[in-house]
């Protein structure tokens, strides 16, 4: 009985390792900026990816900090400032032709350009929310920052739901 059980356990571990290896394939997604020459559109698509990573990282830094009982206000302010700079520049990250045709893994949907007015409005709405978050951070009132996080995240999602198509690696 005991040997049977240990065989079963070995089998279970093997299954687990198999799952982990399969899952490891997911890491292929994260490509860094390719070396060498690129078309301006491909360059824009890669830069955009990096900028969104920075924007996400800055927003996450704010959220992580506000979860603490004693948030680092300076770090929150630094992060919301980064977010403001990036959100302001965001509309310039989408030159025409920088979608999937420029970078296969791009998650930018074609309606960014066919519905340019709608996209522009969504980007502006996000800028407004990020600006409010930044103002709250500058005021030093961390409860105000916490209160503004949901609206800011909602404005990211508002745009993502409509103008982003999720891609698997």
């Amino acid at each position, binding site marked *: *009985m005991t*040997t*049977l*059980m240990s*065989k*079963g*356990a070995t*089998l*279970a571990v093997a*299954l*687990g390792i198999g*799952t*982990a290896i*399969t*899952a490891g*394939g*997911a*890491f292929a*997604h*994260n490509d860094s900026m390719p070396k060498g020459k690129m078309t301006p559109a491909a360059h824009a698509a890669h830069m955009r990816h990096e900028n969104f*990573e920075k*924007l*996400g*990282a800055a*927003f*996450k830094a704010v*959220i*992580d900090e506000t*979860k603490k009982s004693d948030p680092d206000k300076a770090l929150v302010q630094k992060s919301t400032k980064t977010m403001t700079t990036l959100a302001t520049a965001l509309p310039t990250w989408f030159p025409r032709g920088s979608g999937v045709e420029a970078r296969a893994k791009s998650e930018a949907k074609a309606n960014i350009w066919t519905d340019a007015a709608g996209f522009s409005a969504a980007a502006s709405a996000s800028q407004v929310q990020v600006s409010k978050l930044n103002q709250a951070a500058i005021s030093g009132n961390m409860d105000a920052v916490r209160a503004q*996080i*949901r609206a*800011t*995240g*909602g404005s*990211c*999602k508002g745009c*993502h739901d409509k103008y*982003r198509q*999720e891609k*698997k*690696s």
Partner: protein
Amino acid sequence: MSDAPSGVRVRLWDGPVRLVHWSLVGLTGFSWWASEDHLDWHQWSGYAVVALVLFRIYWGFAGSGAARFSSFVRGPGTTLAYLKTVSSRVPSTTPGHNPLGALSIVAILLVLLVQVGTGLFAVDIDAYQGGPLSDRVSFDLGRQIAEIHELSFRALQALVVLHVGAVLFYLVWKRTDLIRPMITGQRLLPSDPGLGRAPWWRLALGVAVAGAIAWALSKGLRF
């Protein structure tokens, strides 16, 4: 299913096993639905799954007869031998999980562990929502973990399809109803397998410990 073969009515699946089983069915479906636009609920559902899976693993060592891993997990030899007999059109009389079903149970529990484990650290694309431990990882790593979270859900879906398919195969081909026992807990077997029963305090201990761990994780281990 009114064929009345001679046999003994056996209390096969105890209450905790059945409750965990059907709760996982419900919560898995709910979590899937809530993963799109209701990540708050998705998280709460996930904490419940943490508690259920941890409890079920504990119960696999401390529970009553058929709930125990030692009663159903078999080696490759026994499993292969069973595999050779599985296509024969005779009712199954294994008192609990058969060796193939055992693989299904272990695989589902493992994938569920991966599922909730990655969920604890996963970060949403908007960075706004993340698992309770997501502040321990970077945005980038949190996103990669979220991708594994999705991938392991595909694996879970495949296992569920296989599991349901097998149960239907037993029902239609072998004329063995495995569904009703998982609801009533009772099954008609040729002879009494003499399954042991776990004392109530073991149940209480498992519920308390699994619940406490899930609660601590939901708080991000911050107290």
